């Protein structure tokens, strides 16, 4: 059916399609805390990760269609490992990875019939909080350098708004996790309690040697969640050191 469709309309249709697809899924948030960068996703699966390690200081968080962002994750790991092997481990940066993702998503969006329904965050922890970088890459390949925190997916605007009220770059891990889960529980206007079982949590820990990425799960996650809730119930931010 050789209908003529104006390019503007074509792009708009694709964008609407992608946005709808992404909005069906749950959100993820990435934010700074006193010890580095915290990544939290609303994810019931323990094995199909939304949050992963890309390289020594760089992590990946994604929302949307799993096979599509999983492909992007594998591509990022391959790119980073080739780069680091060819030059030096320090020569792999979050900016390069964010660019590669932006180019790939941009190409897919403009050239293929079906855009990818994904939204991605690339976070890199620096030696000091000033060196931290958080990039958000959307389905059409636009890239945004975010300051301090970012929410992607489902209803990221509401989540982002909720996070803005609670975000503090020097919060303890428990307090930051509490802010993140409270923001995520605001999704789609509903208010629900997020349990450890439906959270995927990881950190890029500034003080760690070699690889900074570490997952937080099991009893440690439960105790951090309790600590965070206790702290905010007692009024405001907690300054307790995390173990």
């Amino acid at each position, binding site marked *: 059916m050789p209908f003529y469709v104006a390019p503007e309309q074509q792009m708009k249709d694709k964008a609407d399609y992608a946005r709808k697809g992404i909005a069906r899924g749950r959100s993820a948030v990435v934010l700074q805390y006193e010890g580095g960068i915290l990544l939290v996703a609303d994810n019931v699966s323990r094995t199909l990760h939304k949050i992963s390690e890309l390289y020594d200081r760089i992590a990946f968080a994604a929302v949307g269609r799993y096979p599509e962002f999983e492909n992007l994750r594998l591509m990022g790991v391959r790119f980073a490992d080739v780069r680091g092997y*060819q030059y030096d481990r320090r020569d792999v940066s979050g900016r390069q990875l964010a660019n590669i993702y932006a180019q790939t998503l941009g190409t897919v969006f403009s050239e293929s019939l079906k855009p990818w329904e994904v939204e991605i965050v690339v976070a890199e922890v620096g030696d000091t909080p000033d060196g931290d970088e958080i990039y958000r890459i959307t389905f059409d390949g636009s890239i945004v350098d975010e300051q301090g925190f970012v929410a992607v997916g489902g209803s990221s605007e509401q989540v982002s708004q909720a996070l803005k009220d609670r975000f503090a770059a020097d919060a303890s891990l428990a307090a930051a996790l509490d802010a993140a889960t409270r923001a995520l529980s605001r999704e789609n206007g509903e208010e629900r309690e997020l349990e450890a079982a439906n959270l995927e949590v990881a950190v890029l820990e500034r003080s760690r040697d070699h690889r900074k990425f570490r997952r937080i799960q099991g009893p440690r996650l439960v105790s951090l969640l309790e600590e965070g809730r206790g702290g905010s119930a007692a009024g405001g931010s907690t300054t307790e050191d995390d173990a």
Partner: protein
Amino acid sequence: MFEGFEGKGLPASFMSAGTSSFTEFLREVRPELLPGHGLPAQGIAAEHLTPDATTIVALTFPGGVLIAGDRRATQGNMIANRDMEKLFRTDEFSAVAIAGSAGIGIELARLYQVELEHYEKMEGRSLSLEGKANKLSQMVRGNLGMAMQGFVVVPLFVGYDENHDKGRVFSYDATGGRYEEQRYHSIGSGSVFARGSVKKLYREDLGESDAAKVALESLYDAADDDSATGGPDLHRKIFPLVDVITRDGHRRLPTDEVARLATEVVQGRAVRPDGPTAPLA
């Protein structure tokens, strides 16, 4: 091949390659980066092109394993390097050390590090210790052509096995043959002397610090009788490297701790030049 690397996204294989092995992937996209690539297939007396790395010892102790290496690299009768590092942390629970052609060995160890980490990131879980040992065996076998021309590289692989709560040692030959060693092993030019020394000093109940002492004594003995092995250099403050792997992960002993132990060894030799004796009965 990589023109589009910065400009137009990556080659398709970055997205579609069906492998979790970094070496296989590299062979597909950047074969020229593999160790030993571009060296002539046929050659004569190429050994002088890269120095030789010498003696490594490894021994297990309850709950872990320790590996130590001297710092010397030689080229014929010359000392090519006094403070070379032959020990490589490969991941949280393993380490590899190399003896033989230094240039290729270092490349191989570097590739192996990336290989283990790459697999872990791609698959979301680490290889088993046997899996890691077997992978290294394949990579050594891949170097066989080079070995035939004189570029022999032999690694010694150690790791902590979480399933059995103990340290394990694997040795290799140039064809990739893999042998699990019980208790202790040594490779490199001074290995004959080092192994003899460890054999006499080894006990099943060595603590971590005593195990380090035994390793340093054995490296001293290797340096004593093998000109290619370097002893502790108190004046330049160059000491052997010692890596310890337990259930808490990989740890390189800090230089001042090794310096303290090495100084004790050297001072002991001032009194008894042949070192400690093992009881006869």
